[in-house]
């Protein structure tokens, strides 16, 4: 009889706390958004499922969760906390990304820099709320709108906040189509929104090959901390563009990327155990994260308008909003927003330039933080 009681005590039903139920509801919402709304399904689905699994209670001592030394989930989670998965994901993303639009329009690079003001503004905001330097930097990076970059920086500087930062980053990336349009409406006038831009020029193969090499070297020289992220991103891109390593690029951009994405997302989800996640700090992170996205969007829009003061060929300031990255969502948002005002004004390719520049920009920003705070 004792054994039966012992066994019943080990079931999750006996240990279920309110916090776990709240978190499981959140996991359910993430899965719902992923499947029904199709918001970032490749990330939100495994994250949501991970939240469910991470909040199954069990008698402590069993090696099951991500925080239990030696458990299977902890081994997978080590791929996150060691910072290994994000650069591998960047390797895959690099092998899928086409930087042509950026190469053909160097001035758009600056828009990708301007949007990073969201990162540094939020860093200040987080300091203001009492977070430490390392924590504030990790929170600020949410405004970079790059999941892997956020997770990488958190794993290096503030592993204890990795869960909420990752969830916040991916949630707001999924909500880009909700967050950005009102700001676009507020900060541009009708005339600006209708500005048409010249079609981008053709980019030669030689330029495409030199681009990743030059960018990797320059970015890593200016911010060595960005070495892991920018290095891998550009290695992937070089594998793709070189034309002599197609099979490597293909493997990096398919299975390697997919497997790392599954394991990273699931493990991040699992790390949101209620007792670790449901804190006032998490609330602060979510508030600051939203702020971060908004400041970044505003920064991009206003800087584009500023640039127009000096340019002969005006750029459409809307593409500044794409500088936050969230590739290619925010570029799509720009495209749709512009089409609303001029049904033949296709800004997608023009918006892709600041969009991918934003990826580089926030990786550099992460590098700066690593250099100072590690």
């Amino acid at each position, binding site marked *: 009889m004792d054994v*039966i009681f012992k*066994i019943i005590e080990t079931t999750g039903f006996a240990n279920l706390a309110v916090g776990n139920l709240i978190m499981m509801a959140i996991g359910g919402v993430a899965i719902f958004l992923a499947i029904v709304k*199709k918001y*970032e399904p490749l990330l939100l689905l495994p994250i949501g499922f991970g939240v469910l699994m991470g909040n199954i209670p069990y008698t402590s001592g069993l090696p099951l969760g991500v925080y239990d030394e030696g458990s299977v989930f902890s081994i997978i989670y080590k791929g996150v906390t060691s910072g290994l998965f994000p650069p591998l994901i960047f390797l895959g993303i690099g092998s*899928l*990304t086409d930087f042509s639009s950026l190469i053909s329009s160097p001035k758009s690079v600056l828009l990708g820099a301007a949007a990073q003001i969201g990162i540094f503004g939020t860093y200040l905001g987080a300091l203001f709320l009492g977070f430490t330097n390392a924590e504030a930097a990790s929170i600020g990076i949410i405004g970079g709108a790059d999941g892997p970059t956020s997770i990488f920086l958190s794993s290096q500087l503030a592993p204890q906040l990795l869960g909420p930062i990752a969830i916040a980053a991916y949630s707001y990336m999924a909500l880009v189509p909700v967050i950005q349009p009102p700001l676009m409406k507020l900060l541009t006038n009708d005339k600006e929104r209708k500005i048409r831009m010249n079609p981008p020029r053709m980019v030669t193969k030689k330029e495409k090959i030199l681009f990743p090499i030059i960018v990797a070297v320059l970015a890593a020289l200016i911010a060595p901390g960005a070495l892991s992220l920018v290095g891998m991103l550009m290695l992937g891109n070089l594998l*793709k563009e070189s034309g002599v390593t197609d099979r490597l690029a293909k493997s990096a951009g398919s299975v390697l*990327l997919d497997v790392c994405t599954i394991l990273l997302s699931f493990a991040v989800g699992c790390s949101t155990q209620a007792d670790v996640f449901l804190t006032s700090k998490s609330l602060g992170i979510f508030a600051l994260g939203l702020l971060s996205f908004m400041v970044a969007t505003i920064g991009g829009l206003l800087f584009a308008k500023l640039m127009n003061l000096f340019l002969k060929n005006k750029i459409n300031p809307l593409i500044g909003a794409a500088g936050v990255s969230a590739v290619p969502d925010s570029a799509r948002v720009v495209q749709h927003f512009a089409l609303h005002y001029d049904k033949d*004004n296709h800004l997608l*390719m023009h918006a892709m330039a600041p969009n991918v520049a934003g990826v580089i920009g926030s990786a550099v920003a992460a590098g700066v933080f690593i250099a100072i705070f590690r």
Partner: protein
Amino acid sequence: MLENVIANNGFSTALSGMLIVFSGLVLIALAIYFFNLISQTTKKIEQNGEKHNEAEESGPALAFMGDEKIPEDELVAISVAIELYSRLHFEPLQSELTFLHGELTNSGWKTGIKYGQRQSIQR
């Protein structure tokens, strides 16, 4: 050796283990059962309410033809076509050609970025 069984609480462990396995699977069976029930009830209510577009409901599920017979050759042809189609469209490509409508001067473009982004909506 029966002592070893008893010393290790063998019988109660086995019994309660079996109990847990059964309760677990009974719970799952009940969940499926109730879920089926709800789904059927909902369907009946909907059917009584209004005749709605059935094609939409069926989704990607395979329609079973009931008594109607399909020539085997056609089945083979269909399955090969489906295989080819899924091979072409569901496998991740390295880069992809996309053609937008509208003024061609402004819109003929190519993008390779496909990662992680709601791509299913557009197609």
